[in-house]
């Protein structure tokens, strides 16, 4: 489903939470909206998902105006969306299956339909053996999977993710994002993903809008924004990003303290004659000391490579071979 926003405004007692946002979210993609806390992204998503009405502006779903619906059509319209949240917001009074069943219950599905669909969804989110588990017994990642299953129960056309991975650790975040990507493709969903983490945008989104002080400061394809950021806020987000997700570097070099000032690598290439291709690297201050890390490939014949590694180790650099980061 295609979503168009036209000059949306929302004001809380004089504070302009959303200040004239126009946005076109094409169907069948993952659209990221990134911003710091207070940038207006929660307000924006609450308006797009029709939980809150804008003070000004228009919202269209597939060209159909949605911001001026009466109460009844509003409730029906919301049933075409799924939504997942930072704090999962599952019903503690219901077990996993009953949580997933809820949207179908309020939509009047039959008991048999519900049972069948719940099982299907449990398989989709890889929780087939947890159906009868109480919510409190699940880990954060499992809770978010239940929430995803619940959000998908009535075959929504749009899925909103409101900081859905912000309470999860990096590994779990990755697995939730890859689940979302799979589901997006399988169900031809439009996914609107709100986040403050650039990693999340990088790892999952096709398009992104950068939000600051209630306005969009930059938008476009994720590839373009990453390769050519224009606004300082975007740059700021990108600068906090670690580069560790480059594919299969040959070696990881770690070094500390004074070594960060020594041109070991350039000396190495001159003295031994290997070529070093640096994929990414950086120096960070850890507990008052500078610690450096370089991901690189070393090319040359085996003998040269061995010499090069010995050379590096002799100079106090820790060398790890072929660490795979994806």
């Amino acid at each position, binding site marked *: 489903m295609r979503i168009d926003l036209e000059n949306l405004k929302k004001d809380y007692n004089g504070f302009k939470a959303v200040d004239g946002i126009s946005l076109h979210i094409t169907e069948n993609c993952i659209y990221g909206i990134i911003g710091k806390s207070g940038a207006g992204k929660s307000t924006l998503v609450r308006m797009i*998902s029709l*939980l809150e009405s804008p003070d000004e502006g228009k919202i269209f779903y597939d060209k159909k105006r949605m911001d001026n619906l009466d109460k009844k059509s509003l*409730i*029906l*319209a*919301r*049933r075409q*969306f*799924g*939504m997942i*949240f930072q*704090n999962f*917001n*599952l*019903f*503690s*009074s*219901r077990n996993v299956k009953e949580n997933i069943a*809820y*949207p179908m*219950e*309020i*939509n009047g599905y039959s008991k048999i339909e519900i049972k069948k669909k719940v099982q299907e969804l449990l398989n989709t989110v890889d929780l087939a053996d947890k159906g009868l588990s*109480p*919510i*409190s017994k699940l880990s954060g990642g499992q809770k978010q999977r239940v929430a995803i299953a*619940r959000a998908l129960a*009535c075959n929504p056309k749009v899925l*909103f993710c409101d900081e859905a991975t912000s309470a999860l650790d990096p590994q779990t975040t990755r697995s939730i994002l890859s689940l979302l990507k799979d589901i997006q493709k399988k169900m031809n969903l439009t996914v609107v993903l709100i986040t403050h983490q650039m990693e999340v945008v990088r790892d999952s989104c096709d398009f992104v809008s950068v939000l600051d002080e209630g306005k969009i400061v930059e938008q476009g394809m994720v590839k373009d924004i990453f390769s050519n950021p224009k606004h300082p806020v975007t740059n700021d987000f990108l600068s906090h990003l670690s580069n560790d997700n480059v594919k299969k570097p040959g070696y990881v070099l770690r070094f500390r303290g004074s070594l960060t000032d020594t041109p070991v690598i350039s000396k190495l290439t001159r003295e031994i004659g290997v070529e070093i291709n640096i994929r990414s690297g950086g120096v960070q201050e850890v507990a008052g000391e500078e610690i450096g890390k370089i991901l690189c490939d070393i090319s040359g014949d085996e003998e040269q490579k061995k010499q090069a590694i010995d050379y590096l180790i002799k100079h106090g650099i820790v060398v790890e071979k072929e660490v795979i980061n994806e």
Partner: protein
Amino acid sequence: MNNVLSLVLESTWQTLVMVFFSGLFSMVIGLPLGILLYTTGSEEQGGITPKPLLNNILGRIVNIFRSFPFLILMILLLPFSRLIIGKSIGTAATIVPLSVAAAPFVARVIETALKEVDPGVIQAARSMGSTNSQIIFKVLLPEALPSLVDGITLTIINLIGYSAMAGVIGGGGLGDLAIRYGYQRFNSVILFWAVIVILVLVELVQFAGNKISSKMLVRR
């Protein structure tokens, strides 16, 4: 001794009848009132259909009834009892003021229990397109159930206390027994047993209430 036993038994029965029916009626009035207090409350407090004026009026009425001393409320309600039950003394007549006194208490207890429900969960239910009644009956009440049970336990214990006061207007029950035999006729044996039975009743209700609500929490 036999006489004492039968007196205490009869009064215990009357107390149980009073507490049961006044509990039931106060719930019938207090539950919808409590839900209304919550749903019409401000959005920050979780109200799903904020109506400040209605909420304010309801809140005032509930507060007035709650701050009324029970004895005076009972006396003021005597004509009302006569209108409904046909008489103003006895066990049945006492149920009317007891229910009226407990209903606002129940309403606040229900409101407080509902306010404990995570607003995020309600937002999730709304985002899925739940109607207000679906939110109330399929989300709010089930989510708040353990706290609701605690609140109902508290109400019943209060009612046992109130029902003892009802002895003053000849309401029957253990309080009446204690006043007539224990206080006015200096029969300390009966006074003693009346108090013991009241204490045991309170303990039993508290025990049962705790058991039920903790059992519910364990399954979550």
